[in-house]
C-alpha cells in the first residue's frame, strides 16, 4: 500500500492546502501552520565553521607530528629487529668448526652424542642448529666417527661422500688420497657418482684415482687414535706427510723414494722412534735439526 505522506508533501509545496484539507480538518491545518511558522523561527546554536577548522588544523598538526614520531618509533623498532634477525641469522648460520693443527688431535661430541676423533691437521664443519634433521658434516683430513643410531649421517669431503646410519668408521681425506674404514655396521661411500657399500671390517681406498676395496683388516678402531699410524702398501710420501702432520716437523728426503710402497707403522709419541720406524725399512738415516727440520738420507 502506497503511504501518502501528505503533510510532508504539503510542507514541501508539492500539494496545495485544498488537497491537504481532504485529509485533515481546518483546525488541524491551523495547528500545523503554527508549528511550521514557529519551527521556521528556530535556529541551531551558533556554530563557527572557520573557528572549528582552525582548531581542527591544530589538532591535525599535532596528530601529524604524532604520526611522524610513530614512524620514527617504527624505524627504531625495525632497526632493532633487523639487527636482531641479522645477527641471529649470522650466528645461527655459522657452522661449528673443529680444527686440529699439526701434531694435534682432538675428540669431541656431536649434538646427537656421536663421537668424533679428529686427527692432526683436520677440520670438521657442521651446522648444529639443524643437526637433528640433517646430520651432515664437512671433513678435511682424517677423522674417526662413532655414530649414534638415528637419521642418516653424512660426511662430505671434497673427494666423496660417506653415509651411514649408525656405526663406527674412519675417514681420511688427504691430497689424492681418500680412505674409508668401516669398523661396525655398514657405510656407503659415494665416489665419482658411484655408491660403494662397505661392511664392517672393510676398507675403501682411493689413491691417485685408483680405487681399491679390501675386506681384510681386523682392527676394531683406527690405529691413529691409539697414537699409532699404520700403513699398508702406501707410497712413502704419504707416510712422510703423516709423520710431518703428527709431529709438526718438516722432513727432507730423496724424491726417488716418493712412490716406494711402505708397510709398517710409527708411533705419535716419540719422534725418534717414529723416524726409526720409517727410515730403517728403507735403509735410510735421519738427522734431527733443532728447528723441527729432519733429513732422511
Amino acid at each position, binding site marked *: 500500500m502506497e503511504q501518502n505522506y501528505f503533510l510532508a508533501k504539503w510542507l514541501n509545496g508539492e500539494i496545495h492546502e485544498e488537497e491537504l484539507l481532504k485529509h485533515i480538518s481546518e483546525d488541524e491545518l491551523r495547528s500545523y501552520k503554527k508549528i511550521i511558522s514557529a*519551527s521556521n523561527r528556530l535556529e541551531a546554536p551558533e556554530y563557527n565553521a572557520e573557528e572549528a577548522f582552525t582548531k581542527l588544523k591544530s589538532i591535525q598538526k599535532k596528530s601529524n607530528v604524532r604520526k611522524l614520531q610513530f614512524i620514527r618509533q617504527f624505524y627504531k623498532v625495525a632497526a632493532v629487529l633487523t639487527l636482531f634477525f641479522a645477527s641471529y641469522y649470522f650466528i645461527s648460520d655459522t657452522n661449528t668448526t673443529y680444527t686440529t693443527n699439526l701434531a694435534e688431535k682432538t675428540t669431541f661430541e656431536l649434538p646427537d652424542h656421536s663421537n668424533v676423533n679428529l686427527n692432526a691437521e683436520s677440520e670438521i664443519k657442521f651446522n648444529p642448529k639443524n643437526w637433528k634433521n640433517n646430520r651432515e658434516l664437512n671433513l678435511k683430513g682424517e677423522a674417526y666417527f662413532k655414530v649414534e643410531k638415528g637419521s642418516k649421517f653424512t660426511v662430505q669431503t671434497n673427494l666423496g661422500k660417506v653415509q651411514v646410519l649408525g656405526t663406527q668408521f674412519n675417514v681420511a681425506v688427504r691430497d689424492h688420497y681418500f680412505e674409508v674404514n668401516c669398523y661396525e655396521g655398514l657405510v656407503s661411500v659415494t665416489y665419482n657418482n658411484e655408491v660403494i657399500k662397505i661392511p664392517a671390517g672393510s676398507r675403501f681406498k682411493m689413491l691417485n684415482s685408483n680405487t681399491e676395496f679390501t675386506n681384510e683388516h681386523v682392527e676394531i678402531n683406527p690405529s691413529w687414535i691409539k697414537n699409532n699410524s699404520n700403513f699398508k702398501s702406501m707410497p712413502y710420501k704419504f707416510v712422510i706427510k703423516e709423520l710431518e702432520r703428527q709431529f709438526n716437523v718438516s722432513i727432507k728426503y730423496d724424491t726417488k723414494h716418493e712412490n716406494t710402497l711402505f708397510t709398517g707403522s710409527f708411533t705419535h709419541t716419540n719422534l725418534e722412534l717414529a723416524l726409526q720406524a720409517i727410515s730403517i725399512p728403507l735403509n735410510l738415516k735421519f738427522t734431527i735439526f733443532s728447528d723441527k727440520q729432519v733429513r732422511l738420507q
Partner: protein
Amino acid sequence: MDKNNPGYCDEKTFSDFFLNHSKLLHNFIYYKCGNFDMASDLVQDSFLKFWTNCSKVIPGKAKSFLFTIANNLFLNEFSKSKVVLNFKSTLPKDVTNESPEFLLEEKEFDAKLQNAIGNLTEAQRIAFLMNRIDGKKYREIAEILNISVKAVEKRIHNALVSLRKEIENI
C-alpha cells in the same frame, strides 16, 4: 556532487569540504543529542576520521560517508539520554504588529514546540530539523542519511503529526 575534485586527501578540497559541511554536521549531531559541545567535539572527531580515511572516500559519497562516521562515533560514545534541545528562536520580523500578550503566547508556544521536538524520535527530529532549520530538501536529507526520499517524507509527516498531538495535548 560535493566536489568535482575526487581527492579528499588534498588540503584545499578537504578545507572546502569542512567549511561547507561542518555546520550541517554539527546541527545533525546537535539534533541527536542536544549538546552543543558534544556536537563540536564529534564534528572534530568525524572530520579527523574522514581525513585519515580520505583515500577511501568514493567521490559523490563523501557527505554520506562523513555523516555515517559521525553517526558511528555518536553511537560509540553516547548512550541515549534525554534530549533537551535549546534553540534560539528569533522574533518575527514584523514585531511591531504584535502585542506583548501575543509575543508571550508565541514564546510559550516556542517552548512547547521545542519540548515536543525533543520528544520526537531521533530519526524524525533529524529529518524535520534538517528541513526546517538547515533548509535541506528531502532529496538532500535522503542522501545524507542514506535513506530513500519516501522515508524522509514519512519521517517528516510523522514528526508533524506527533508535534501537533504533543503540543495540543499538553
